[in-house]
């Protein structure tokens, strides 16, 4: 089987300011690691070069006024919020990122590859129809989902495992029953949303599943949530494709968050997602990069772990250098798992009227 890696050298160009956490350097070390691992000429991995998304395809998610504002501000420089400014050339960078997600989806749908990882910048999951936020401008994931729907894909499961709640994506699909949005995120934390009580509206009621986790949460809890919430929901929902907002900021070395996932944990979770996709949707799975700011720590190992799992490679050596272990001991909180289980139970209760796997009759 072959995994697609969607990447463009221009993904290294976008920068709000040299000191910003979401900066060019984020992917530099990952690219070094990939080059050294021989990823770009690996038998099981195909490098795919994307094109910018069209204005029409991003209009399927965002308001025309907002897009005009983005495009205009990209000529002079502009401002959205304290974390999110508009550097010159942002418009081109944001369209190329959305185009990467679209290209990844097409590659999977057309059978070019079994699954794909769109390693794009800037990220997208905080962007809403009328505004950007939290380093995000265009919601790459949502643009991709709309594109999939336009190509006739009926049901899509989104798993957003970025450390921050994917509030933009949740809002866009909040009233729809053809997109099941699930999210694991640190809580309480930026952007403040993502409680177990947000379960969708109208036709979409029951089609949003938030799994908030406390700081210090580690591998064991993520795998627990995958096996006891995401897996059962997915099997019952029977999506045609699994779309993962793959934020890498849950890693224990991430400077912006307080979670404790390891590179091995990431790859193990992705392996389960791949297995699940094979069971229920012919292996159709697309991962899109969101956050991840541990530029000098875990990023090269987590990105590699995700790609290796998609390509079905041996994961036994996916790990951090042994010197990182002390760091992990400090960040990881074994008692966090109790909170994770409590929240999961509350979520199951909230969703029980809608899903047989959680007790509906």
């Amino acid at each position: 089987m072959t995994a697609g890696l969607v990447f463009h050298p221009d993904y290294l160009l976008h920068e709000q300011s040299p000191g910003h956490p979401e900066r060019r350097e984020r992917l530099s070390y990952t690219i070094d690691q990939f080059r050294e691992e021989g990823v770009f000429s690996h038998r099981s991995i195909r490098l795919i070069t994307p094109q910018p998304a069209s204005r029409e395809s991003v209009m399927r998610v965002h308001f025309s006024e907002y897009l005009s504002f983005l495009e205009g501000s990209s000529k002079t420089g502009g401002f959205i919020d304290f974390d999110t400014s508009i550097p010159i050339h942002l418009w081109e960078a944001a369209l190329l990122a959305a185009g990467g997600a679209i290209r990844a989806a097409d590659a999977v749908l057309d059978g070019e590859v079994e699954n794909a990882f769109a390693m794009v910048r800037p990220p997208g999951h905080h962007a809403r129809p009328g505004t950007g936020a939290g380093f995000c401008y265009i919601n790459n994931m949502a643009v991709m989902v709309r594109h999939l729907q336009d190509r006739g894909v009926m049901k899509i499961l989104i798993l957003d495992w970025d450390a921050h709640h994917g509030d933009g994506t949740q809002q866009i699909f909040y009233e729809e029953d053809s997109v099941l949005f699930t999210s694991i995120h640190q809580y309480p934390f930026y952007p403040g949303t993502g409680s177990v009580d947000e379960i969708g509206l109208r036709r979409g009621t029951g089609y949003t599943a938030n799994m908030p986790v406390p700081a210090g949460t580690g591998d064991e809890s993520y795998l627990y949530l995958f096996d006891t919430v995401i897996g059962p929901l997915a099997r019952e929902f029977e999506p045609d494709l699994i779309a993962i907002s793959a934020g890498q900021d849950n890693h224990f070395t991430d400077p912006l968050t307080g979670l404790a996932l390891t590179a091995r944990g990431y790859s193990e979770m992705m392996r389960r997602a791949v297995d699940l996709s094979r069971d229920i949707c012919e292996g159709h799975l697309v991962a899109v990069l969101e956050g991840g700011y541990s530029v000098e720590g875990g990023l090269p190992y987590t990105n590699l772990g995700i790609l290796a799992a998609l390509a079905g490679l041996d994961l036994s050596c996916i790990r951090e250098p042994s010197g990182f272990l002390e760091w992990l001991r400090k960040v990881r909180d074994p008692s966090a798992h109790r909170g994770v289980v409590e929240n999961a139970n509350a979520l199951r209760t909230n969703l029980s009227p809608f899903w047989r796997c959680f007790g509906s009759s």
Partner: protein
Amino acid sequence: MLIGMDVGGTNTDVAIVGDEIVSVKVPNDRGIPAALDRITSQGRLGVSSSQPLNRILTGDPVRVVTILFPGPGLAWPGLLKGSINHRGDAVERIDPDEVRGFILENPGDAVAIASKFSVRNPVLEEEATDLAKEHYPDERIARSAPLALLDFPARVTTTRLNARLKETVCKLTAEIGKGRPDFFFFKGDGGLASPQVVRENPSLLFNSSAAAVALGAFFLSREKECVVVDIGGTTTDLVPLHNGSPRMRTLISDGERTLAETVETLSIPFGGDSELSGGLQPHRMGNALAFGGPRPTLTDALNVEGAEIGDPSRSVRVGKSEAEDAVDRYLDQVSYAVKETGMDRIVGAGFLAPILIPRIARRAGMRFTVHTDSGCANAVGVAVSRVSLTLHARFDSGRKRAVLNGEVQGLKCMGDDDSLIGFCREEVRRRALAAGAYPEDVRKIDLVSFQAYDVVRGGFRAERIADVVVRIPPGITMEAL
């Protein structure tokens, strides 16, 4: 004088290029010293030796012990403790007892040593080399760091190849160096390199004969867009030239990618010595009858058709219709392949070129050039080549470290981008001149790639990293123009 020597499958060709070209052919069974003895003039000597190296690779298997330090990442069998990270920091050290134990448990003929990211810090490979030297001579130990490129899988394959070839390269160096201590090896990319450079990376020599023919044919004909057709004893090789240069491709060894680049060649398994036995056969049993060989060949068939090669009277054993069929089959195969290249001119090379190239060209409907010295185009190519060299440099201001082709140096202060590029250009020029390059050949230095970024800490640019690749490209030395 510029002197070129190409050690082929059966003969060694020597060409001495001055105001005119003088060439000799010496059978290999008399050994390389015999060929060297025929060189009476003084001058720069280049040696293409891909045939002896090919023999190593097709001969008795050499057991290569591979010592790997892959560290975190994609899995490798037989991994040992020790890891260099992407920044070039030794984040896990080797366990000398573990390495010693591994060497004892895995006896072999040669050792290949590779750690991930060794091109950014070779320390683990150096420590393991010291341990390997307790059991193996240096001539049988190859390291991956001098390969200088990121791509661990390809580096491992290339280092394994180098481990198999290094001793032969050392012996060749000693043998040739006895009479000509300042000779150069001719590389697969068409450039020359000092024996010291080749010793650290023998894979540079791969398939150098094809590069030699391509360069020689271009030098003699000055045809920039053409297909060089080199008619040898066992094969006929096609090398298309674009803008005077052949296309390069990655060498595959045992099904794995290497870091060696070789000239793209299409090889047709028929040549002047192909046996005639119920038709033309794709193998060689020895010389043609016309040269005292045991069995009739394509060369004898040409004699039956009226050519006068060697002693034509010996070729009469071949029947007229058998000869015509064989030549016809040969011309068909080659003219078809030549037409497929899409070029419209053939430049001939090899001993039989004057006889066969016009007929191939007529059948293919193409124009052709056969130079008077086309018989030794390969040796001419070696003679007129020039020193080429690539420098891969990484500068890291935070670590105060520069790594040049896999060797670490201190870095006191890091200038701006232009000064880094200037430094690399000066360094590659200095190295080439020290190796004996002709000064006018190192005036132009290509910047192959430049990448730099800042390391940010606490919101501020704290450090800077830059990767620079510069090279003196292969080609014809100004001395010959």
